[in-house]
């Protein structure tokens, strides 16, 4: 277990510690490098200079303070959706519904951001954040309860609930909550009040720090509390958990609630810190990217942060890459897809690195009919 390796580092020799960390990060690292190499080949085939293109990608994501701030801003919701997916993995659940939970969080916090008036900024932000997080949590509770009491596969129900979320948010943004200010013709809510805005410190969005704090809380919960132990035990073996007297159904629901809560905060921070309102199309893919990030980060909270920053950097630098090197904007998607491919199909890399085991936590998913 990598975290134990980390915390017990004092008792071990330093080289052992490095070895165990390397054991965990070797595959994601190799996957990233391999994806970049194949991306470079694709760039050459498409007639672009890969060095120029990657230089532009780095310039657009880390080149200036502003670029770095954009990278962190892009990484912030991804950390939350990554945590949401990773936490569910720990309990053996595959939460594909992070996208829907995130959308509801984004919309509800937007509503709280423009409907509630007269609050001081700190209180307003807290309230709007909580409202979005709770919306995500409640929406996560549905597939959790279906899984716990009927055994319905959360993979299927969360996929379906994503569509429910898309339609609810589209309807509200184009109906009861639509921005009816002069000249507006598109579906969107009014802008949130200034008191509900999450500010930036210089170019660094405050939401990012919140994401770091929440990552630490998630890590602590998973490995330093009874609840976390129950979540992980249910994930490893629901039958053993049941046999040892754990409340499996309760844990499954709780996990999905927390997972939805995390995705919901991600959407809220995006609304309150970046977009400033809810508008359909502005949160596309953030929840789904959480799956890539959770796997790239080996489902560990501290692995998710660098994974999210990496994907965030690619998103932030994509336009500059297009602008400076004339590269099609889709190339970053291709590279991201390749990373996901190599992380999940880690057999390929294991053969190349000649390691037997991928290291880190194994993901064990439960199937149909398991309560």
């Amino acid at each position, binding site marked *: 277990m990598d975290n134990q390796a980390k915390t017990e580092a004092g008792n071990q020799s330093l080289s052992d510690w490095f070895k165990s960390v390397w054991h965990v990060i070797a595959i994601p690292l190799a996957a990233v490098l391999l994806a970049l190499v194949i991306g470079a080949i694709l760039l050459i085939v498409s007639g672009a200079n890969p060095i120029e293109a990657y230089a532009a990608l780095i310039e657009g994501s880390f080149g200036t303070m502003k670029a770095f701030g954009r990278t962190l801003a892009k990484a912030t919701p991804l950390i939350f959706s990554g945590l949401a997916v990773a936490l569910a993995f720990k309990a053996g659940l595959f939460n594909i519904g992070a996208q829907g939970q995130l959308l509801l969080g984004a919309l509800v916090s937007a509503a709280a951001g423009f409907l509630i008036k007269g609050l001081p900024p700190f209180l307003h932000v807290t309230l709007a954040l909580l409202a979005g997080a709770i919306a995500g949590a409640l929406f996560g509770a549905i597939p959790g309860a279906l899984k716990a009491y009927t055994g319905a596969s959360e993979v299927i129900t969360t996929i379906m609930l994503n569509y429910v979320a898309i339609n609810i948010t589209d309807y509200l943004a*184009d109906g009861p909550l639509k921005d009816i200010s002069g000249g507006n*013709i598109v579906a969107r809510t009014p802008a949130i009040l200034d008191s509900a805005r999450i500010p930036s410190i210089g170019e660094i969005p405050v939401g990012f720090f919140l994401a770091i704090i929440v990552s630490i809380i998630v890590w602590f919960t998973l490995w330093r509390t009874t609840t976390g132990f129950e979540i992980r035990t249910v994930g490893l073996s629901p039958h053993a958990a049941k046999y040892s007297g754990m409340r499996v159904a309760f844990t499954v629901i709780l996990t999905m609630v927390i997972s939805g809560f995390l995705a919901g905060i991600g959407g809220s921070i995006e609304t309150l810190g970046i977009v400033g309102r809810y508008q359909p199309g502005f949160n596309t893919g953030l929840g789904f990217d959480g799956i890539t990030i959770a796997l790239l980060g080996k489902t560990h909270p501290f692995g998710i942060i660098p994974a999210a920053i990496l994907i965030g950097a690619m998103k932030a630098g994509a336009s500059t890459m297009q602008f400076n090197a*004339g590269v099609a904007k889709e190339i970053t998607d291709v590279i991201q897809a390749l990373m996901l491919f190599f992380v999940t199909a880690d057999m390929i890399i294991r053969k190349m690195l000649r390691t037997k085991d991928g290291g880190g936590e194994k993901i064990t998913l439960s199937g149909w009919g398991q309560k």
Partner: protein
Amino acid sequence: MKKFYTVFAVLAIAALALSACGGASADVSEDNCADEAVLCVGLVTDVGEVDDKSFNQSAWEGVQQAADELGAFVKYVETKDAKDYAANIQLFAEKDYDVIVTVGFALGEATVGESANYPGINFIGVDQWQGEELANVAGLLFPEDKAGFLAGALAAQMSETGTIAAVLGTDLVPPVVAFKEGYEAGALYINPDINLISTYHPGGMDVAFVDPEWGATTAKQALDQGADVVFGAGGKTGNGALIEVASHEGAFCIGVDSDQWETVPEAHPCLITSAMKLITPGVFELISASAAGEFPGGNYFGTTGLASFHDFDSSVPQEVKDKLAEIDAGLLDGSISTGY
């Protein structure tokens, strides 16, 4: 009416622009955008591609015309994430581009926001209504009702049954309403007794423009009720109507926004013309005005018109063509009103 550029001409210009990028011409390059003598024009698309056969492409063709005729350095950035509108505008602004074209209503807020940060740059916002007049932002808008009026006048003259129809995207979008009102007024102008069947899509924004099945069903119903000309105005929904009409012998259909002869080849058996917004010349006019130091801030109305009749050129009688030319002139000088 402006003839469309062939794809080849466009490619040739693109090649020219690219070679300029490679440094073939030392003066007109991105590095010299700050130089007053060098005109640099950037374009930011909405989420979508520059070759979308629609808004983005038409606007980009206008920019390419500026490269060709005004010797401008031109470049585009395709928006990948709607949150990057402002960042993409800044890519051009930081390089001291002279004119930045942003395509689509959705970019309106970012365009106005950045126009304040870069007062020395002129912004052209395609389909962006300007509530407040800013000196360096021109919203390029179109009198859709006039294009609709011409389409309606043509439909009424070509109809033998005395019944014509319109299959429309949602009435939540003002340009669609303008097309419809103009279409009906134009038809009534020719024949006060004409029977009109106009139907808006009943769904919301999310489905109204992407529901070709509904468009086809609605067009079929109209044909069953005796309509023999159908105006399809509403993205893919409208295209569904056009394609449905194409399978009915003797019925005509009319496209919308751009020349749909190019974009919906399945509709060739019925597509008599399209009610167009002339985005390409509109963008070019505004770039030229900027280059001449006469940039008009605020709302700028481009022109609309009917596309070529293509294969139906011989089927449209000369007196109908004359009548349309007469109406076009009347709409232009104000002697004919669409009533919208």
